[in-house]
């Protein structure tokens, strides 16, 4: 399955690079969510939001592979 993840931040125009579409595998997850979190990190409106978005990129790739097996 391909998963599409789009990040929208409040009160700002969201450029297209804040979305990613990728095959749901641990490796792709790591690469793409890292990019996504990176693109949002400097503009997210507070520290709390930044860490919440960051957490998306911290999910262990093995868990993503595990989840994919259930789809």
């Amino acid at each position, binding site marked *: *399955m*391909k*998963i*599409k*993840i*789009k*990040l*929208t*931040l*409040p*009160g*700002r*125009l969201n450029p297209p690079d804040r*979305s990613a579409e990728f095959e*749901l*595998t*641990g*490796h792709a997850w790591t690469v793409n969510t890292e990019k996504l979190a990176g693109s*949002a990190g400097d503009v*997210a409106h507070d520290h*709390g*939001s930044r*860490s*919440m*978005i960051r*957490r*998306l990129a911290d*999910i*262990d*790739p*093995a*868990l*993503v*592979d*595990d*989840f*994919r*097996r*259930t*789809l």
Partner: protein
Amino acid sequence: MDPTVCYSVKRPWTPLPSDRAAMWLASTYAASGCRVRAVAPTEAAGDDCELLLTNYRVAGSDHNYPVIEIGGDGDTRSMIRLALGRIHGLSPFYQRGDTRAGRTFSGLLRPLGKLLSSHKTPLPAGSDVPDAPSNLGGRRVVLRVNVDWDSRGLDILERWCERFELRPTLAIAGSEILASQQRVRRFIAATNCDIASHSWSHYVVMSSHGRRRQRMEIADNHDYLRQLTGREVRGFVAPFIKYDRRTFELLQECGYQWFIRGWLLHPLPLQQSSLTDLGVSFRFSRGWQDRLLARLGHSDIALQLHLRDLVRYEHLLEHNIRLLLQHGARIIDCETFFRETTGGQ
């Protein structure tokens, strides 16, 4: 205060892949200590929401929290599969595994199913198994055993309960134990184990039946278990983990508080309902014994076993239970897991 993550999905009752992905993501946040709330529709997320996970399209910038929108290409395929399943459900042989004609029909279809499944995209090689953490103190392993009747399995479980002081959850389908009621009653009295309902008939796909049959499966088994054990039953595990909206409505009517459905890292409240999905989070696939301890490094795990698995993998499972306890993991039942994670009474 813990940050609050909200999630909102289109089909909480019979989820499609994007719904499941959103719920799984929400459970990863819950596992890392966030408070997760189910909201519907997305506009109701409220001021305390710090992140919204959804598969709805969220319009513009009229919200004051970040939104992660999840979509996927598997939804259409799943919709078609569901529709075909519904048509197949109307055929006279569907769900007749207890008749010779039904068994023959299912057997004839099996090669076709295998052929179709070979078209699936192969899974990636998978990520490396990380090293197991040396101390798992505080991590919980939720042990639930579904009762597909096998007295040897129950003997093994009783021995483990005594030796390791386990208190598992037994998910019981009434029709399975009718002939062995006294044995089960003795087991429950001896181990004081937790009891969950597993429908009356066991081999039944709840979501393909109407309200009347579902009520029979849920309410009859509920009454039966209440009489058998003398206590309230608060958890439900649907056979084949298939649910629909009616199943959840009936579960709420009967006073259930938790159920098992999704692949989740942490219990998650079900959208538009008072029920909590405890989830399953460990797959007994090849090499599982190498992954078990490492997996606990990330979160608690909820296991699902059947009595027949206990007979088949007795020594391997016993060895791993011993290993888990040596590493400081707590092996608990579903009810305790539910109470500890949701603060339920």
